């Protein structure tokens, strides 16, 4: 039994995150940017005081700036997800590396993004009162942390219940427990409705859908890319072509 190197997994996670980030960037540019531009156009036609120096031009913001943000996000979350997979391998259930990678990606999509998004959705420019930014930032990150911790707790609970209830029922019970705890958080944490009067509802909806599409692309492709790389790393197929000089398992 060769030991799996954490470093090898981490490097592959960051590479898979970069590749997934590139796909997410394409989606963000094609679906997201037109909505950001439309929202800025609305903002400019309705603001009373504007003007002032533009530090970064719109062209740079929507290309190089967007790429910086999305790619760093992809690499950073890819690295973290790889570390989670490194821990989950052989611990969460009888899943191979590829299945573990896909499950961790789906779990991350839901817990890092979708659950916080349902309470505090992404907002385009022009939506959001700058005076509540501190509060909204705190609550957003609180929601992310809460959701991630609850997901971890749900997985542990599911593992504990599995011997008694069986895998299916244990998974259902853990999911219900997650919802029972997250429900009150949704109900009692403050909400914000800072959409200006007259802001096009369709534009808001389309912006939020495209933000969701960016994340679905990122995590979906990350799971597939990283699963492929991790599978090759951990369970190398018996070489078909004898010419392939076995690049010896994994050095530590």
């Amino acid at each position, binding site marked *: 039994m060769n030991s799996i190197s954490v470093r090898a997994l981490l490097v592959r996670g960051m590479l898979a995150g970069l590749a997934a980030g590139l796909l997410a960037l394409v989606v*963000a540019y094609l679906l997201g940017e037109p909505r950001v531009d439309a929202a800025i156009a609305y903002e400019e036609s309705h603001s009373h005081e504007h003007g002032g120096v533009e*530090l970064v031009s719109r062209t740079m913001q929507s290309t190089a700036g967007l790429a910086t*943000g999305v790619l760093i*996000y992809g690499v950073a979350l890819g690295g973290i997800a790889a570390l989670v997979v490194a821990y989950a391998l052989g611990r969460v259930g009888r899943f*191979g590396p590829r299945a573990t990678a896909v499950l961790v990606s789906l779990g991350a999509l839901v817990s890092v993004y979708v659950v916080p998004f349902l309470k505090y959705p992404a*907002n385009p420019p022009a939506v*959001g009162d700058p005076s509540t*930014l501190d509060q909204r930032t705190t609550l957003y990150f609180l929601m992310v942390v809460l959701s991630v911790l609850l997901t971890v707790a749900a997985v542990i609970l599911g593992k504990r219940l599995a011997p008694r209830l069986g895998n299916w029922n244990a998974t259902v019970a853990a999911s219900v427990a997650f919802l029972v705890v997250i429900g009150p958080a949704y109900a009692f944490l403050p909400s914000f409705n800072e959409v200006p009067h007259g802001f096009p509802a369709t534009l808001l909806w389309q912006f939020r859908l*495209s933000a969701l599409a960016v994340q679905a692309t990122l995590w979906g492709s990350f799971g597939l890319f990283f699963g492929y790389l991790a599978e090759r790393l951990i369970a190398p197929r018996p070489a078909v072509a004898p010419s392939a000089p076995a690049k010896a398992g994994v050095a530590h």
Partner: protein
Amino acid sequence: MAQSAVPAPSSQPVPEITPISLKAIAPWALFFGVLMLILLYFVGAEQGATAVVSGENVHEWVHDGRHLLGFPCH
């Protein structure tokens, strides 16, 4: 009929993966985990509610990414 004491091999079991020991993961998780979180902070929150670097340049540069990745921006 002799009942075999050994349970019949029902299906091809997935080969067990030996878990990586926590001791092997911890240093990587600590160092890179923190590094990744710092990167995420700069993409998601710097020069918004809190600021390490003064000015607006970081915020303005990642502005579109911040909106489209779902972070509160302004």
